[in-house]
């Protein structure tokens, strides 16, 4: 039962990543694309946690922590670039 619920949640996360990728391809301005990339990063963290559950290794969660700590710096860098100058 629990396994079925986790499977369905992982499929919903995959659908979410596809939808935000469509915004990244279509997005008319650069700002849309940056926000879409940030959303994809957050959903990828949840995918990593699902993979740690499916393969039964608690040690994969370290990768998720690294993602959470590092990923926002890229978004800050692009925003600083857009407002003219670092």
């Amino acid at each position: 039962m629990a396994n079925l619920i986790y499977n369905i949640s992982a499929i919903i996360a995959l659908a979410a990543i596809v939808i935000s990728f469509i915004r990244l391809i279509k997005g008319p301005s650069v700002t849309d694309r940056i926000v879409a990339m940030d959303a994809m990063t957050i959903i990828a963290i949840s995918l990593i946690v699902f993979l740690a559950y499916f393969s039964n290794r608690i040690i994969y969660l370290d990768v998720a922590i690294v993602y959470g700590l590092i990923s926002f710096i890229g978004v800050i860098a692009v925003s600083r670039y857009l407002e003219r100058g670092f």
Partner: protein
Amino acid sequence: MTLTIIIILGVIMIAAAFGAIYFNKLLAAIVSAGVISLLASVIYLVLGSPDVAMTEATIGSGLTTIIFLFALNKVRKENKK
């Protein structure tokens, strides 16, 4: 389940590579190339090598994008001068 993850993420990565080729704006191409590295690290985790996944997450999607932006910023400053 892991097979589904690999196939869907693979299709997204190939589409992002086509985006990096055909986008006219350089900033959009750089963001597309960042998405490729971002999803590649999830695939490394499926393939059973968390060390490589961690390296790709920090270097591929973080520092490479930022170094491209720094170079683009320097080019823009030269252009304005």
